[in-house]
């Protein structure tokens, strides 16, 4: 095991999985350094859940390898397993168990179990130990799941869309709990999420899956800073964009051209100038907007409240999209 590997909490090497003819995950390689909070992003169907299932050993890859805390996940020792906590999508709990029972059930797997912490979390949310898990609201289930995930004081936490379906307040509660977790040094958190605002708050690094392939793997800020929207204004029909290095997508919107470019530099500027637009505007974006522009694809968005102008025989015809 190299030095590099031992300072990584998660090492994924050339991971692939297909379902029938379709690749769910294709040649994925990724290292998550110890102590990192890693936001794993991508549109639905991009391969995030499949990857996480392979990370936790719940699905077998067709190729490649996953190493957690230095051990291959397919042969994880129970000692190492007890240092890892996992929150599955939808926070499934055995519906017939009471909260008290599920705590008692989970506890023996973890020698480091902090019962005081569990009690604190459950009391904080006013959760009675006699309540059946099946009768809990979604938010309450998430709270129980989180208590169970925090109790073993895990070195590595893997969370699959932990805030899915939670209301705004519960989501904020969850985030605050996560911040508390992060504050202890050396703890690694790997989570997938659709709430980009939350990811921006807590993630040091992000990865973005697009159609089964990891297209982005860098510090959160690097991604933000690399993606730019460039809007070019013309007097009339804009020309087709000839393409440039780092072009993600482009489209015509009325008399404007909108480009999404990664690492905008002098060569791209030159190509833009060559089209002779009347004006140019370079737009910085927050993480959510940058993510949307990056992953939206070349399919036109549906401009529901937009008027489009089409030229038909020299006469401008207006139509709603």
């Amino acid at each position, binding site marked *: 095991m190299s030095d590099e590997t031992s300072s990584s909490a998660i090492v994924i090497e050339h991971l692939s999985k297909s379902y029938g003819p379709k690749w769910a995950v294709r040649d994925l390689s990724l290292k998550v350094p110890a102590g990192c909070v890693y936001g794993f992003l991508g549109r639905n169907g991009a391969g995030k859940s499949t990857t996480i299932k392979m990370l936790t050993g719940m699905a077998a890859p067709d190729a490649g390898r996953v190493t957690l805390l230095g051990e291959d996940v397919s042969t994880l020792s129970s000692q190492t397993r007890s240092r890892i906590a996992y929150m599955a999508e939808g926070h499934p709990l055995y519906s017939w168990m009471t909260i008290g029972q599920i705590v008692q059930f989970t506890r023996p797997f973890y020698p480091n179990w902090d019962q005081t912490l569990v009690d604190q979390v459950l009391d904080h949310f006013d959760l009675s130990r006699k309540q059946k898990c099946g009768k809990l609201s979604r938010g309450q289930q998430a709270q129980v799941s989180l208590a169970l995930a925090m109790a073993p004081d895990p070195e590595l936490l893997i969370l699959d869309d932990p805030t899915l379906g939670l209301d705004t307040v519960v989501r904020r509660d969850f*985030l605050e709990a996560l*911040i508390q977790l*992060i*504050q202890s040094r050396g703890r690694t958190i790997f989570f997938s999420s659709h709430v980009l605002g*939350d990811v*921006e*708050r*807590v993630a040091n690094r992000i990865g973005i899956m697009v159609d089964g392939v990891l297209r982005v793997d860098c510090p959160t800020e690097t991604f*933000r800073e690399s993606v730019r929207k460039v809007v070019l204004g013309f007097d009339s029909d804009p020309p087709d964009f000839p393409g440039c290095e780092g072009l993600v997508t482009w489209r015509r919107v009325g008399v404007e051209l909108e480009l999404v470019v990664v690492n905008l530099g002098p060569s791209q500027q030159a190509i833009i100038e060559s089209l002779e637009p009347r004006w140019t505007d370079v737009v910085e974006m*927050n993480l959510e907007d940058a993510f949307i522009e990056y992953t939206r694809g070349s399919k036109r968005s549906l401009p529901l409240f937009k008027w489009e102008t089409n030229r038909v025989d020299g006469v401008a015809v207006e139509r709603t999209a």
Partner: protein
Amino acid sequence: MDFSVDVASRTPIYRQLGDQIRSAIARGRLLSNARLPSVRELSRRLVINPNTVARVYTELERDGLLVTRHGLGVFVAPPGSDLTKKARRERLIVLLDGFFTEAVLLGFTSDEVRELVQDRVAQFQWQSGA
């Protein structure tokens, strides 16, 4: 002292926080030797990664605005700067020119700008002399 972050903003979080602290110091809302919240406290309050807070504090310390006192916390540095007077003037001139460009393009007269400057100067806590 109330800080806030807006994740919807185009400005990255660390820059928002950095700007807010700088502004608070410049306006006298945070005085010399005032203690700032710890990295832990602030990250909890703002619900952001403590690394981000740590990074802002480090940057501001490097710029001479904050100082860490071991075991005690992070404080606003006493006035005085490492930069020479010349370097400080130059930094300010860059900002001024940017401001004037904007003002000219917005159609202001120099008298209007002077008046505006007088008015805003009064909002800040200036060093006396030196």
